[in-house]
């Protein structure tokens, strides 16, 4: 067989299959540590405030994007905000079709900079509107582990 002949049987072609052993462990960082502990232990959202421009970052950042100040003044930001953007997802992260589409949104907490991206619940897709008032719903204290999933979802404010 000359090598420029057409290959007609797929078993004549081999693929070499393998798997790279990769894993990672990602710490929440200085600001994330306080933020998630506060959610886990007290069911509260906190942000970092810049003393110069007064902006409050949620999720917290240890630097002010405007003033480049190092931030360490933690403030309570309450449970309410507004829906900045939303979508519904018909596929899960491996590409499989979900039985029910998941509602996902970006919520900007009141008087803060930044958004929390999370699931939206207790609402239909058709009812969602950009700008609508939203409220955070935490999991029960016993179910919290110190992660963003300690927030169960956001729901429209009654």
């Amino acid at each position, binding site marked *: *067989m*000359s*090598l*420029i002949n057409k*290959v007609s049987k797929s078993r*004549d*072609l*081999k*693929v*070499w*299959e*393998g*798997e*790279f052993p*990769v*894993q*990672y*462990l*990602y*710490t*929440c960082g*200085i600001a*994330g*540590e306080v933020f*998630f*502990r506060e959610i886990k232990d007290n069911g509260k959202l906190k942000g970092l405030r810049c003393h110069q421009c007064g902006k409050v970052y949620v999720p917290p950042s240890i630097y002010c994007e405007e003033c480049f100040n190092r931030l360490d003044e933690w403030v309570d930001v309450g449970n309410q905000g507004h829906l900045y953007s939303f979508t519904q997802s018909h596929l899960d992260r491996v590409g499989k079709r979900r039985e029910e589409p998941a509602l996902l949104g970006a919520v900007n907490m009141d008087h803060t900079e930044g958004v929390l991206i999370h699931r939206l619940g207790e609402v239909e897709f058709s009812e969602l509107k950009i700008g609508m008032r939203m409220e955070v719903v935490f999991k029960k204290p016993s179910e919290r582990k*110190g*992660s963003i999933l300690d927030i169960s979802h956001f729901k429209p404010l009654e």
Partner: protein
Amino acid sequence: MHMNVHLAGTALSDRDIKEGKVLYTEWKPRAMYAWDAGTAISRFLEGLRNGIILGTECVKCRRVMLPPRIFCELCYRPTEKWVKLKDRGRVRTFCFTRVRCDASRVEEPFFPMVVELDGGKGGTGLFHVVKGMDVSEMTVGLRVKALWKPPEERIGAITDIENFIPE
């Protein structure tokens, strides 16, 4: 010149993580790959499964290529001919190592080497490993032969040859 640089950051140890002193998220992504062996290597690997070592020959410069390639990069033309090589030959070059690829130590040193197999036309080297030799006995030009895995254990891989041993 001494530079007084303040390095920002927070040092963490394994213990801090294990004892849950800091919050973290961890994941093992499944990073799978499938490498297309191509026409020449596919046939070469299939040959190994059957206990045969196949190379290709360029009919113009008469070179035998191993592992086989579908074109001669010197004459810049397709290789037309398949050649069966013997599973024995001479060590062309070698080194020895006392560690595995994960840097763990082995009891007996082994010799990654290039073997020039009989039936080639010179300059035909297969990269493999010689085992079962003392460091002082190993030389360039040493006659070696392939130690094949039993047929039922072969899968069509370069490791179907366990290693080479002195002839």
